[in-house]
């Protein structure tokens, strides 16, 4: 569906190599579309994602950041996503506390078999970011293009 406004959000998706990246691959091989605004960065595990990376993305002008990992209990490294879950919960809570719209960040557990879920999640997330508009609260103004 074409979006009404011209706003082209920048969305960074961190995907763990074992589940979610494979889920994204499956979405691709199943031709399940989602907007091109989403760009995926492959990380070995959701627990590799440092809150700094997320803030960095916002600093550089991202409008939304989503982290996808294996379902709790299914982590390739057994426990990585449990740590990620706590870290992200606290980080998101802090961002909310600072007045950053909390829909800009999201964590979703997507298995290698869930191509449909991956695509659905991305569609939903992009839509959410559209409803929130441009990220202005967490960006470094120097990165703005005139």
């Amino acid at each position: 569906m074409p979006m009404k406004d011209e706003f082209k959000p920048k969305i960074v998706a961190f995907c763990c190599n074992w589940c979610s990246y494979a889920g994204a691959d499956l979405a691709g091989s199943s031709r399940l579309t989602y907007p091109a605004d989403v760009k995926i960065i492959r990380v070995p595990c959701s627990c590799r994602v440092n809150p700094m990376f997320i803030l960095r993305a916002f600093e550089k002008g991202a409008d939304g950041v989503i982290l996808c990992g294996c379902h709790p209990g299914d982590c390739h490294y057994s426990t990585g996503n449990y740590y990620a879950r706590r870290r992200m919960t606290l980080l998101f809570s802090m961002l909310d506390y600072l007045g950053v719209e909390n829909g800009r960040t999201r964590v979703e557990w997507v298995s290698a078999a869930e191509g449909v879920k991956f695509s659905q999640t991305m569609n939903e997330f992009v839509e959410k970011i559209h409803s929130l508009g441009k990220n202005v609260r967490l960006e470094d103004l120097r990165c703005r293009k005139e």
Partner: protein
Amino acid sequence: MMYKIARENLSALFRKIAEQQELYLPVRRAGQVNFGVWSEEAVVDLDTLKSVKSPKDVFFPQSENLYTVQKEGRKLNVCPQDLQEKDFVVFGMRSCDVQGLCVLDRVFLSEPVDTYYAARREHGAIVALACHEPEESCFCKVFGIDCANPGALPETAEGTGAENKKGGADVAAWLIGEELYWKAQTEKGEKLTEALKGILTDTGETEEQQKLAGEKVAREQAAIRAIVEQLPYSHLSLDGWNGAALNEKFNSPLWEELYKPCLACGTCTFVCPTCQCYDIKDYDTGHGVQRYRCWDSCMYSDFTMMAHGNNRTSQMQRFRQRFMHKLVYFPANNDGMYSCVGCGRCVEKCPASLNIVKVIKKFQEEKQKAQAAEMAGGDQL
């Protein structure tokens, strides 16, 4: 010619100034007073003696862009930063802060001239305010600064840098009771006064009236000076602190003891009106690079870090550097001018309660002890 204005009319004065040019003055924001741009919403605070950050920020911002490199494919375009071109006014600087600018002038206006700073100095007019209620942490008197005579040329500069008329404030002001007295001191000041004449009122046509106003100010000055006399630090002795004392002071074992509680933070540096060190950094904007400079602190472990490493590896060395610079190196290179103006900000803000006064006193104490020992020894002989 002395002018005056009622305290209640000050906002009209500020509005008038701001019509033509940017106006910086002490503004209270989230409980703290710092120099900021005037606006209708701004809460102006002239009663707080010291802003947290000194107004050097206006002339030498904590962070400022030097130039921008735009990237287009493989092409790079260098876009220099525009220099200050418009006149602006800084209202409410204290004598010590004005003297702080003299210190910065020494650094930035001597060859090679720092064009960014020079442009701001050229376009900025300073309205200095007397310190009606000096505080216990103040010790400007030690450096020959008269806070009752705001923005006047410091006595110590006479004969050495007196030809540098830029040193003082353009307008001196006293806030006495419910009135502000205003006296232009320079051509720039006269020009500003001229533009504000509708709001500033004459203190009187007659010589007599002028004299009365002058006396009122003089009385206030006397009162201020009397308070200054009582301040605990006003009679601090700088005896022995000069360019010639380099080796003696540098090699003193006292530093080893003095630096111990230092947390290596940059508070003292960043509130100081004379600290002028900066770092130059590049920021990748994604579509280019912004080269900017920002204040740096000699207290930081990565200060002047270069490819070969760091020339000061211990906190003792860094701590020593700051005071040696203010009291020894700077006077050695600047006709005896200290690069401390006794504003006392570092005295108030150091998280570990360390400060330049304690350093000066410690050396003094040791010297007296040594002298006493010598005398005692002499007696024995």
